[in-house]
């Protein structure tokens, strides 16, 4: 007879608490996003709305990862390993959360800065700084990764490239023929990032608990 193994009560309780905390956080951030959306952001095209939506998703995902980094059971569950996470693994999760959060901010920043009249050069300097930090971190992560982690990174990158180049080829052809509107680099950037963020979550879904033989 086959049955699913009983879930860890500690994990169930931690997930329940996470749900409550994240709901409160989601409501607060969504209220902030609503405030931005209505009169405080420079919106001229669909990509501006999309940038705000993707930026919001990044901020929410980062908060969830940061929260999980403070719970041993939740972080172990996310990493799909037995035992408590090490200090190094916990720190890695926090750095990742910080980078995802900053990515969300950077995606929203140009529109917000323009809408609120912030100095453009300074804002752009911040974006460049983030790009440098993100690039260095990604290269370091790739170099220090083992074969399984590296394969996942390449797999996510490969799917992202396939989807974006296919989309660009189709849209670029249609644009040159005058069949669709001209896209800007901002439009293309937000679509590429949306695909890059969504692709890993489809590729690397958590496996269901293994059935237990009785």
């Amino acid at each position, binding site marked *: 007879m086959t049955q699913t193994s009983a879930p860890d009560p500690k994990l169930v309780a931690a997930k329940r608490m996470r749900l409550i905390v994240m709901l409160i956080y989601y409501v607060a951030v969504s209220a902030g996003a609503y405030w931005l959306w209505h009169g405080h952001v420079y919106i001229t095209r669909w990509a501006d709305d999309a940038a705000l939506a993707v930026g919001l998703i990044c901020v929410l995902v980062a908060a969830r990862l940061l929260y999980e980094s403070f719970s041993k059971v939740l972080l172990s569950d996310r*990493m799909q*390993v037995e*035992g408590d996470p090490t200090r190094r693994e916990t720190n890695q999760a926090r750095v990742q959360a910080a980078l995802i959060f900053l990515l969300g901010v950077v995606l929203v920043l140009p529109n917000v800065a323009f809408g609120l009249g912030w100095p453009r050069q300074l804002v752009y300097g911040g974006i460049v700084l983030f790009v440098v930090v993100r690039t260095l971190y990604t290269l370091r992560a790739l170099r220090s990764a083992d074969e399984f982690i590296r394969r996942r990174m390449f797999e996510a990158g490969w799917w992202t490239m396939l989807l974006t180049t296919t989309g660009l080829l189709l849209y670029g052809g249609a644009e040159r023929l005058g069949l669709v509107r001209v896209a800007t680099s901002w439009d293309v950037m937000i679509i590429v990032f949306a695909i890059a963020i969504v692709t890993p979550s489809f590729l690397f879904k958590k496996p269901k608990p*293994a059935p237990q033989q009785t």
Partner: protein
Amino acid sequence: MQNRLRTLRAERSWSQADLADRLGVSRQTVNAIETGRYDPSLPLAFKIARVFEAPIETLFQDDLP
């Protein structure tokens, strides 16, 4: 590909972290191999065989009938 890593690790009372340290990989990698989500490269498979002091064909079996 099926493997006996989890059983052999349990026989030695090693945690996933212990095995990961011996193999020089992350715990996620050990877990992914044990749960059949990832088939290791040939060099890593040989390393696993050396760590468990067992022939490689006794550790891994393909899914073919």
